[in-house]
């Protein structure tokens, strides 16, 4: 058995903080062995024009294994295990030679994608399909860095370069990616084993109806007329315009509160300028993202959810309906400054954690006052 240091990709981004790799990302790393062997075989055939396939057992006994995780953010140390007797120091087997060539080609293809070069100069088009699985777990802000054999700056696989790599292959019309969508369950089909959700705006998306999510989905379908929505998370198939066309796998289905703020904001994203009888600005999508992130991060789960409305000026107004009071806050989406109105008035900076703490405290006090009044 020969063991060779093979690859030390550097995983950067929010998912890899604390020098740790999320378990579900191991699926991405697992693709590497198959990917590299496939490219190595193709390269051998290219070097041997008279041959249509590699010799029997050419890649038998080859394994890529994760041996440890180094710090910074997280660096999985991948070693190549080759069956057979160890060679003399410095000697390289044909297996190793082609596997290392394959590694170089993959990294060069990523570099070409990053630099806007010609990707198929480095990898055959059909091999690019592996990027549909390798790197799928990357989110915005994440990257996998690779050192090039000749040194120099590292190259990075990001969600954007991955997309370029997959869609470069001729005939490829779809890419799979993590997907999270909120909508109403409008159909279930036990015969075909599918369900369908309707997204804000009317688009319908189908997914597999698996036993572990069946009850949640059927309950949500029954209650859909009453406004109940679900959040579906899984692997989605996207077209070239980055529009989700179906869920290929469903990992989680959650029934949402009727006042779920994120789902409501998804609806309000669709408002066009003039929504208020000719007046009313459209809401800025990036600013809505910012507010959504802040709300989900900072608003405590144990407090009542607000009703969420657009404002004429293109902002958002949260309104709480408590038994004895109806506080509200009108939020400028650009500055995330909120104008609080209840028994008192205040300006609350919702661009800061302290602002959210202030808001939560105000709501919490009003909830307590309601409860005390109810108990009196």
């Amino acid at each position, binding site marked *: 058995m020969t063991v060779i240091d093979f690859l030390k990709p550097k995983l950067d981004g929010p998912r890899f903080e604390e020098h740790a790799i999320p378990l579900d990302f191991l699926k991405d790393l697992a693709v590497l062995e198959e990917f590299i062997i496939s490219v190595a075989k193709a390269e051998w055939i290219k070097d041997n024009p008279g041959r249509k396939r590699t010799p029997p057992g050419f890649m038998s006994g080859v394994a890529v294994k994760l041996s440890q995780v180094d710090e910074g953010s997280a660096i999985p140390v991948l070693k190549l295990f080759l069956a057979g007797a160890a060679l003399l120091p410095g000697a390289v087997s044909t297996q190793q030679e082609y596997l290392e060539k394959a590694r170089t080609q993959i990294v060069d293809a990523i570099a070409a994608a990053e630099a806007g070069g010609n990707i198929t100069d480095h990898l055959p088009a059909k091999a690019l399909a592996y990027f549909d699985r390798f790197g799928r777990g990357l989110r915005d802000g994440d990257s996998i860095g690779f050192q090039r054999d000749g040194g120099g700056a590292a190259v990075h696989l990001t969600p954007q370069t991955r997309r370029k790599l997959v869609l470069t292959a001729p005939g490829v019309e779809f890419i799979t990616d993590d997907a999270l969508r909120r909508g109403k369950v409008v159909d279930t089909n036990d015969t075909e084993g599918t369900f369908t959700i309707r997204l804000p705006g009317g688009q319908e998306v189908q997914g597999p109806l698996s036993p572990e999510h069946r009850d949640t989905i059927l309950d949500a379908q029954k209650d859909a007329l009453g*406004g109940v929505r679900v959040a579906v998370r899984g692997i989605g198939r996207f077209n070239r315009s980055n529009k989700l066309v179906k869920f290929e796998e469903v990992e989680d289905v959650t029934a949402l509160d*009727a*006042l779920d703020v994120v789902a*409501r904001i998804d609806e*309000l994203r669709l*408002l066009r300028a003039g*929504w*208020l*009888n*000719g*007046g*009313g600005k459209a809401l800025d999508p990036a600013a809505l993202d910012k507010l959504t992130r802040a709300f989900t991060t900072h608003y405590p789960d144990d407090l009542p959810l607000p*009703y*969420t*409305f*657009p*404002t*004429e000026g293109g902002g958002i*107004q949260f*309104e709480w*309906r408590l038994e004895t009071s*109806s506080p*509200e806050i*009108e939020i400028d989406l650009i500055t995330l400054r909120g*104008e609080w*109105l209840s028994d008192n*008035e205040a300006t609350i900076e919702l661009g800061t954690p302290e602002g959210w703490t202030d808001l939560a405290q105000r709501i919490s006090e009003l909830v307590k006052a309601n409860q005390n009044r109810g108990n009196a």
Partner: protein
Amino acid sequence: MLHRQINESWLQQGVPSSQTFRPTQKDNGKPSVYDGDIISSAEASYLHWTQVLKLTSVGVLAVTEAECSGKNLPAVTDGMDFPAHATIDFTGCASNGEIKRLAGELTKLAFARGWLHQPGEAA
């Protein structure tokens, strides 16, 4: 009764926004309502709003003139644009906060009274 048409985006889970009676920019501090003494019914005001003025509404809520004047918000039927046109005058409010507060109070009163008309329901 002063009929107010409700914008679809200002209704969530059947609950209207406190902005319902708040003046918008084009209102110059005086949001429009229909004078229920002049127009025959809430449904008629809805039909005028949606079919004649070609604007959108998901239903009609209403307050009384007395409820407005009780908050120092004069309600005036001016007959501008169409005979039943009336306004609720917020121009005497001292601050934006006061406008918001009083508009919210009118919404509460109207919602507590219940829908005078919703499309798809028997009149």
